[in-house]
């Protein structure tokens, strides 16, 4: 609580360590993925009406591949540990 009160926006790093560990990656990854998808699809789509749907699909694809890669790496590490 005191760390949150002492937090100075744009000067100090966001006290993300106040959150449970499993939440760190989604909190940091999802906004970046959405931003990349919006800009990329805004460039690629001929009509801007299509951007919302296309960017949503791309965001889910990126997140899906990230989750799959994380699972594969976790299994690989556990396999190598044995």
């Amino acid at each position, binding site marked *: 609580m005191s760390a949150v009160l002492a937090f100075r926006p*744009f*000067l100090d*790093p966001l006290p*993300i360590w106040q959150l449970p560990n499993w939440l760190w990656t989604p909190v940091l990854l999802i906004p970046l993925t959405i931003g990349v998808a919006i800009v990329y699809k805004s460039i690629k789509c001929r009509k*801007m009406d299509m951007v919302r749907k296309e960017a949503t699909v791309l965001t889910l694809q990126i997140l899906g591949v990230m989750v799959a890669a994380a699972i594969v790496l976790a299994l690989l590490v556990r396999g190598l540990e044995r």
Partner: protein
Amino acid sequence: MADSEQNMSPPVAIVAIAGWVLPGAGYWLTGERSRAIATGVTVILLYLAGLLIGGVRVIEVPGFGDAGQQIQVRTTNGVVWVMSATPMQEIKAKPWSIAQILAGPMGIFSGVASVYSAQSVAVSHTPVNEAGTLYTAVAGMLNLLVIIDSTHRAAQKEST
């Protein structure tokens, strides 16, 4: 008359410079307002999110050390600022700064703020700092894509 006005596009160089000065402004000048707002707002929000996540010290300014002091090197001419002696080596040592400056004047202003706040705010060595650096750098690289695409569209309009 209306058609000739719609086809009129500012010079490609002006579109490129406007796109750097204000992300998305290149599209705005070529008449693609909704594309300008979508890309510009997203790039600016990503950059600000990076500063919010990691703090302003995620901006590593070439030529300045962790405490905000000018980095000096010894040469045959005496002790000089590293940016006047070996600028390319210094920039290569801080490669993220290249991507961050592509976000436009935001990159310059936050770099100045980073140097000025160096006395009171230390550089974080947590993963949060890396995430902040990544956000600001990705925002800059996305803005480069936006600049390239808007100038390409401006050139196509110019040729028609």
